[in-house]
């Protein structure tokens, strides 16, 4: 390839940067070998590059800068570790709150069964003609349930309290009020709510006081249950109580007493 001076000047810097194709490179060198002006220009441009490097040379201390960068990276890494640790603490707290919330909402699946079983094992064993003995009841009840019979009332229509006592059953400690009348025996149990929430959704009953009553049938017995802040109450009967308001009255009286204990 034959190059003229104009072309050689145009590609001269690319030659210095070793960016020319082999063919152009040969043409370039052939021209420069014969052209004094272009040889001189090539020398000047080489000198310019050398001077440029020299002029722009800045005294640098790479080791010091390396240490400075490493230090900045360590600082950044530490700050990230701090963020991660804080995040872990926050996550743990959230998990703890969630567990506490879940634990607080755990369900006492045996609540209804146990009340029905204790009714059979205890209330149904009272002989006919048993009458309420205030002294016996006072001896057998424990704090804070000593006055539960006074609160519930000794008589509700055809139904009368025949006994009251603390009734341990399967690890529970019921305050058990036994009521008899109209050819059946009722049990009113009160206990601290230590085993979780009552199963199933309650039905709200509005009659004077608002009661959320869980009504169910276990072992052939009807159970009406109410949960207060710290306690649960169960009213167990062999058949529906007639009139139904009577059952609500008994429960409502007991709930009022329990809520009084909680306040």
């Amino acid at each position: 390839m034959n190059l003229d001076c104009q072309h050689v000047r145009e590609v001269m810097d690319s030659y210095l940067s070793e960016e020319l194709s082999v063919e152009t490179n040969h043409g370039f060198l052939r021209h420069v070998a014969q052209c004094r002006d272009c040889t001189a220009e090539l020398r000047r441009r080489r000198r310019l590059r050398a001077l440029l490097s020299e002029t722009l040379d800045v005294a640098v201390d790479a080791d010091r800068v390396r240490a400075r960068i490493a230090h900045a990276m360590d600082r950044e890494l530490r700050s990230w570790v701090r963020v991660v640790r804080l995040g872990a603490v926050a996550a743990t707290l959230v998990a703890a709150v969630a567990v506490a919330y879940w634990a607080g909402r755990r369900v006492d699946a045996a609540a209804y069964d146990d009340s029905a079983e204790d009714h059979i094992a205890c209330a149904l064993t009272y002989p006919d003609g048993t009458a309420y003995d205030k002294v016996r009841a006072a001896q057998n009840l424990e704090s804070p349930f000593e006055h539960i019979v006074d609160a519930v009332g000794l008589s509700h229509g055809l139904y009368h309290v025949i006994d009251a006592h603390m009734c341990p059953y399967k690890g529970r400690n019921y305050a058990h009020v036994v009521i008899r009348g109209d050819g059946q025996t009722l049990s009113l149990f009160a206990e601290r709510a230590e085993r979780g929430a009552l199963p199933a959704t309650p039905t709200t009953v509005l009659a004077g006081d608002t009661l959320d009553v869980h009504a169910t049938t276990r072992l052939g017995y009807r159970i009406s249950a109410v949960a207060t802040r710290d306690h649960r109450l169960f009213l167990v009967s062999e058949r529906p109580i007639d009139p139904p308001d009577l059952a609500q009255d008994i429960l409502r009286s007991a709930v009022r007493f329990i809520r009084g204990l909680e306040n």
Partner: protein
Amino acid sequence: MFGISHQRREEFDRAALVHIPELLRVASRLCGGADAGEDLLQETYLQAWRSFHRFEAGTNCRAWLYKILLFTYSAQNRKRARQPFLVDLDAAGETALLVDAPTPDTLTAEAVKAAFDCLPENFRTLVVLVDVEGLTYREAAAALHVPVGTVMSRLNRGRGLLRLELARHAPASSSGAPSGMDLSRQRRARS
């Protein structure tokens, strides 16, 4: 997490920190001083460290670092000067003049420095990368994220402009450049 970070850190040290001397030189040259260069390099390495998970092991870490360095440099300059300095080289037929501009016979370090300082930033960057640091056109294009043709075109203009500015700064007797080539004055007159 901490163990993983340590492992990453070792990989980063091995792949990236070895380029500090070269990149520090480039950063200092671009910024015109060691202090500003060190700041630029530190920011570059912190940026690289934060993005290291995106770096593919086995690829060219030096080119990747160049890219980050130039991006950071460019971002810093954008912050400093909201109005970019644009040179309309096609106006007034300057392009033709640049190609022909001869290099003055007598070159001094002061004249070279003064001429270099007159170059617009994007030309100055390429002159440093290619003519001083010896990057290939392809490497410079990758670092600046522009086509190779753009690199060649900017380099032509930057080198030509440098020679013209040299002619202005060089002693009158040694300058082979055409008279009246004071580009700075011409630009000022146009603006």
